[in-house]
């Protein structure tokens, strides 16, 4: 009766991204956007960070998180364009939003591999 659909899967990733953005992003932003660059907390040395970031588990986690965050953003922004600006070219908007997210996901893989 029911065939697999794309909408529920995108929505699941959107929701997952929303949770990640709410739970993990604040502390990362606090540290790397404010505390370390502005020296509220002395930045950890490079060797330690390199070990933490380069750990396979960290990389896998970051990959999953960045991808769902990108889908979250693309999905939300798509509907903001529909509702907020009443853009009628719905297909084009969807392709542009998810396309940008896909490019971002590929970039994420490349960057994370370079740090491995």
């Amino acid at each position, binding site marked *: *009766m029911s065939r697999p659909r794309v909408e529920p899967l995108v929505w699941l990733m959107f929701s997952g991204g929303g949770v990640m953005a709410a739970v993990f992003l604040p502390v990362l932003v606090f540290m790397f956007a404010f505390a370390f660059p502005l020296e509220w907390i002395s930045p950890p040395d490079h060797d330690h960070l390199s070990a933490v970031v380069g750990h396979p588990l960290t990389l896998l986690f970051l990959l999953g998180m960045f991808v769902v965050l990108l889908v979250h953003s693309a999905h939300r922004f798509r509907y903001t364009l529909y509702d907020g600006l009443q853009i009628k070219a719905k297909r084009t908007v969807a392709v542009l939003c998810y396309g940008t997210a896909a490019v971002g996901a590929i970039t994420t893989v490349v960057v994370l591999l370079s740090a491995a």
Partner: protein
Amino acid sequence: MPSNPGSNPGSNSGSIRLQVTRYRPESDSEPRFQEYDVPLRKEWTVLDGLNHVKNEVDTTLSFRWSCRMGICGSCGMNVNGDPKLTCAAFLDDYAPGPIRVEPLANFPVVRDLVVDINDFMEKLPRVKPWIIRDDDALLDGDGEIDGEYLQTPEELDAYKQFSMCINCMLCYAACPVYGLDPEFMGPAAIALAERYDLDSRDHGARERLDVLIEHEGVWGCTFVGECTRVCPNHVDPAGAIQRYKVKAAKENVMAFLLPRGAR
């Protein structure tokens, strides 16, 4: 016609101005406002004010109403921009006025304050808001219905909140997604689907999900949440829609993971 409070001004504490939308399709190209001053009395609602106008001032004014006690759901209008049951919106709360009374937003205007609700009436049956059974437990030998389906208080409690809907359509008037895309099934219809899904006597969840998993089902909703805020009976359609999304997503994951026959 029930006794009209307007015929007995009694202890009048001044008056308040109503700015009422007028639209006569036979002569007007678009709606305009007409102003009426009505007595400002503590126990009067906006609907009482409109009835005063209709009975004493201008008999040509058209609007819908029936029970005057928040049961029938027919007197919904936009009062100062907010979708309200006019029988529950007291003039005193808007003093000193003026009060802008407009037809329910997001619906086509038929005349004055009367809107065309056909779209809603056509959507409602699509979610099958009735008890669906895949057995005939209550049919006796002659195919006649005999007996009743029993339910515990806990089972009643599971869906009771969603059963309070009076189809007043305030939630549709509050929903920008419906305003922008009339294909969207909309808050009340989806909340009503949830009401029957949660009913222990019902077996129709599958059929309703097939309707609501479609693009114009639940996916257009962006969780503005305004439907829940304006609901006079605290039904929480916004919550029902998000839960339907979870249900549809679960169902979809199962469809991916399990081969066809196994479900």
